[in-house]
């Protein structure tokens, strides 16, 4: 438990000092928690003296006690408030610092990092996981450390009057710590089991929702509900089993504390009987026995939360340790836009995707890459943009090895048009300006006109200032695509990498997208993952990729005469494009 708390305190980094100062306030706070008991003892001893006729009770004592009580409450308030302002905000501040740190790392790692770690998990680490830290980090430090500080202060008070009672209380705390430790071990062991049940439930829920249409079409409603029923009931059973496992330790932890408080009562009764303790002290012991451990009792819940925090911290650590790809890169201005692959081999994991690939793309030419799915077409494009580093060989752009450049200086030469369009939740104008932050409004309109989106942008409620995705401004797939092309046109990079779609997302406006792409590619070095016959036939160079190797290379007229993959590919494409139903 303390190991995780230590880890947590280290995580707060620059705010660590405030955590430690907070401990001092917690210490002072617990003294003020003990004072009322002392006051009660004082009052009771006055009462008993009066009762036994030793000395009469002075009414002034009562007023004194009232004032002292008020002071103790105020002291308690003061120090808990001071502790709150020094400690409680640390969780939020450390979380904000961590988010910013992660954001900085994410912009510098290779894109391979994002495909290895799924996007959803990454964003949930920065959002949900850190929200959990935000809420519980200091809360847990407070519960555990301040809880133990309080109990130790109270035990010391006890020990001051009766060392034996103090000693017994200490044993109680240790005993409860033992059971908490066992609880924590179980919690640690069960964490993956619990997580798996949870994942299964998520998975089958998603499958159920996604399959609903098909399920209904084939009247499998009953079967589908059975499936999800099983997942939900499994999750219930596992959770209940885990809960049952915790319960004995939980109860033993609480019972050991209570048993010790009875022991304190018994010991002080015995000592009083023997005459070595005064009656008022015994009464104080009895009162202490009921409240001394209350700060430790709450710690059973902390055990679970700390387990989750531990896992979260490990997850964050993994992201923080990601490799930054361009540590040693330089900013280099390229002389030309030639692209060269020299004996390039590459694998995402063990399985090789590219094997000894060599080719040249001269500046200003159009190169079409064709081949079956999984042959390595996309990988070639990713390597040009250095989203990954090669395993062997070199990729050079403008005769410079891409590994010698910083990502920023390399990518300033490249525009990429993805099939999946990503627009930001921002105005249309800002989305286009993304291509070149220094662009004027006129330049943006000019790019929008070239990308054939000026007309529909003007129709939007606020024109160029319409925020994408807000009321009434839902854009069609083709319109989004054209905005993304306007962005690329504005960037005006000398190399254009294009992933071509056959079945366009917006077939009615296909020709507009095509015109936009033509504007983008005029006079550029173009690399296109091609599916359309016309594109392939007009290319200056065609690379036919199969199983990670370039099997054919040349122009359409050259390749169509060879008996190879290319001709088969063209045949199939011709069939597909000429297809009609019935």
């Amino acid at each position, binding site marked *: 438990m303390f190991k995780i708390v230590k880890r947590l305190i280290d995580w707060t980094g620059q705010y660590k000092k405030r955590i430690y100062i907070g401990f001092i306030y917690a210490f002072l706070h617990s003294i003020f928690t003990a004072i009322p008991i002392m006051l009660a003892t004082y*009052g009771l001893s006055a009462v008993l003296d009066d009762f036994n006729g030793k000395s009469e009770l002075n009414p002034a004592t009562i007023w004194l006690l009232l004032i002292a009580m008020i002071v103790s409450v105020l002291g308690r308030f003061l120090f808990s408030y001071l502790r*709150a302002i020094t400690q409680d905000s640390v969780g939020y501040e450390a979380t904000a610092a961590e988010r910013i740190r992660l954001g900085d790392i994410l*912009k510098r790692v290779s894109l391979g990092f994002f495909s290895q770690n799924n996007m959803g998990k990454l964003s949930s680490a920065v959002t949900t996981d850190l929200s959990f830290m935000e809420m519980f980090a200091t809360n847990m430090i407070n519960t555990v450390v301040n809880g133990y500080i309080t109990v130790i202060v109270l035990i010391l008070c006890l020990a001051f009057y009766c060392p034996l009672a103090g000693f017994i209380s200490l044993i109680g705390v240790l005993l409860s710590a033992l059971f908490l430790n066992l609880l924590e071990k179980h919690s640690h062991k069960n964490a993956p089991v619990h997580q798996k049940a949870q994942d299964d439930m998520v998975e089958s829920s998603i499958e159920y929702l996604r*399959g609903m249409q098909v399920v209904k079409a084939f009247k499998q409603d009953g079967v589908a509900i059975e499936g999800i029923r099983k997942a939900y009931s499994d999750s219930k059973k596992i959770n209940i089993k885990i809960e049952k496992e915790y319960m004995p330790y939980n109860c033993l932890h609480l019972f050991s504390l209570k048993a010790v408080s009875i022991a304190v009562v018994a010991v002080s009764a015995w000592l009083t*009987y023997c005459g070595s303790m005064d009656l008022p002290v015994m009464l104080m012991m009895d*009162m202490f026995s009921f409240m001394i451990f209350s700060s430790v009792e709450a710690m059973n819940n902390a055990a679970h939360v700390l387990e989750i925090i531990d896992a979260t911290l490990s997850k964050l650590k993994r992201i923080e340790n990601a490799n930054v790809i361009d540590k040693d890169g330089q900013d280099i201005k390229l002389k030309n836009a030639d692209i060269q692959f020299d004996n390039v081999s590459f694998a995402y994991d063990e399985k090789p995707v590219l094997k000894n690939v060599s080719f040249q793309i001269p500046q200003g030419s*159009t190169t079409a890459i064709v081949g079956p799915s999984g042959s390595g077409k996309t990988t070639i494009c990713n390597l040009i943009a250095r989203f990954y580093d090669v395993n062997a060989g070199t990729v050079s752009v403008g005769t410079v090895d891409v590994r010698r450049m910083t990502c920023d200086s390399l990518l300033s030469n490249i525009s990429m048009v993805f099939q999946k369009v990503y627009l*930001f939740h921002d105005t249309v104008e800002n989305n286009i300006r993304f291509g070149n932050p220094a662009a004027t409004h006129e330049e943006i309109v000019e790019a929008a006109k070239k990308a054939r989106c000026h007309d529909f942008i003007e129709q939007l409620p606020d024109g160029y200032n319409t925020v994408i995705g807000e009321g009434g401004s839902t854009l069609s797939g083709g319109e989004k695509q054209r905005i993304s092309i306007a962005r690329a046109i504005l960037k005006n990079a000398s190399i254009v990498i294009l992933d071509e779609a056959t079945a366009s997302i917006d077939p009615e406006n296909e020709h507009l997208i095509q015109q936009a792409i033509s504007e983008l590619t005029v006079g550029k070095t173009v690399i296109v993952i091609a599916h359309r016959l016309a594109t392939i036939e007009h290319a200056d160079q065609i690379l036919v990729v199969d199983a990670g190797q370039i099997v054919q290379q040349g122009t359409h007229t050259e390749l169509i005469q060879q008996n190879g993959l290319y001709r088969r590919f063209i045949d199939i494409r011709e069939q597909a494009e000429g297809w009609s139903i019935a």
Partner: protein
Amino acid sequence: MKQKSWISIVFSFAAQCRLKIILSVLCAIISVIAGLVPYLSVYQIITQFIGGAPIMETVWMWCWIGLGAYALRFVFYGISTTLSHISAYTILENIRLSLAQRLMKAPLGTVLGESVGKLKNVLVDRVETIELPLAHMIPECISNLLLPIAVFIYLVCVDWRMALSMLITVPIAFVAYAMMMKNFNQQYADYMESNNYVNGVIVEYVEGIEVIKAFNQSSTSYEKFAHAVESFKDYTLKWYQSTWKLMNFGSAVLPSTFLGTLPVGLLLYYNGTLTPQDLVICLILSLGIVGPLMNFTTYVNEMKTVEYAVHDVDKLLSVSELPDEKTDVRLTHYDIHLQEVAFSYDQTQENNVLSHISLDIPEGKFTALVGPSGGGKSTIARLIARFWDVSDGSITIGGTDIRKIPLSQLADTVSFVTQDNFLFNCSIKENIRLGNPQASDEEVFAAAKAACCDEFILNLEHGYDTMAGDAGNRLSGGEKQRISIARMILKNSPIVILDEATAFTDQENEEKIQRSIAALTKGKTLLVIAHRLSTIKNADQIIVLKEGEVQASGTHQELLAENSLYRDMWNAHIGAKNWSAGSKEGR
């Protein structure tokens, strides 16, 4: 209108564990009572001493009783908590199941209109947040309420003035908390909003990182991100800081029950109305109610969590069902007729997607719907499959209103080809056989061959007996789609609807999918929502839709001659077909 109270919603799911809940509460009460016994023990021990000569045997006896009572307390506490956890998890399970069942009965269009992620979030995550508060609140809320009441009553018996003095801190703390909670709902809503905003910015930053990097805008995007994170932190801290004073004041005052009992007790003793023994027990008991009082403040927060989650659940549960008929009707013909059909998603006339459309889709013929996007093509197809019910007018199949046809019979009659390549978790053979449970193995193989999936299925480790779940990762999207087409071929329903835009997702294998679709649609009443006009130029009937109305209908040749919209679309299509990427001529 007042919403249904969340408590009654929760307990409507607790039917089968009502006994467990009652038992859990009873055990909690026993546990609380057992927890009071040690106070009595200590009282007895103190009486021994104050009274004069203590008898140690009695002292020991009371110690043992106290210890035993504690043991009893935790045994019952354990039973109670276990039972309440079981109940809470059962309630969770029931909520999830009825959500799932409700969604199955809701109009398909409504379900498909929501993102899977959002629905899953309610189904799994939102429901999960109920568990812990529920498991603790069921027994503890009642017992924590009971204990202070019991102590209060006891103290009233001793001396009513002591009882009142014990509670003196409650109103003071209450005022502090009330001031703090004054605009809690507003603050909480604001907080949730700014939380959503910062999460939105973060998700955008992570998901858009490819674009951000490709346009080397990492530093500016990063600034926006960092700014959002900082201002969220400042906002949250400002809110919390404004509550700290009051909150810490409340939590310092509330447990300080001695504030009242100590001076008042002494005063009462001074006046001679309270014995020292009673004074001691009053002080000790007033310590005993501190815990439950403090617990109550946490319940207030937890109840809010449950309340929010339950209302999310309730919103989904109140989605209306699609009315269904029980008995099958006899269909002899499969022509489709739309009579004055109007439809809008929100049931208002202004937002009509279709405005009083009438059209005929003859049996056994090939009909195509064309027109600009947003014209209502997909809506018509979905209304025929009854994803929703029409707002006005009627749709008939073979002369029978589809609302009179049971949903299961309609599912048998209409096949809808989508990009949804959903495979069930059974063998591939059984997946195909779902199309017709009576089909023999040979018929299944024949369907697979017709759908061009025979070849790759045989290459799988166990061929047709490979479990779809195991093979799932190794099958491409196009392969999964062909398996689902094989299933539809076997199903052999008389009406086939095909949305071209979503039918071809795998461009690498487009030609194989085309062949399988040709096998599926042969001789059927076929309705195609067309985008590439060359695909449907041979259709028996082409219907041109624009802005929810029928503009023209006829064959390809007729429309080319008569309809300017169709002619423009055709020319654009032909032009688009011959365009090439990288070509110099742009306009």
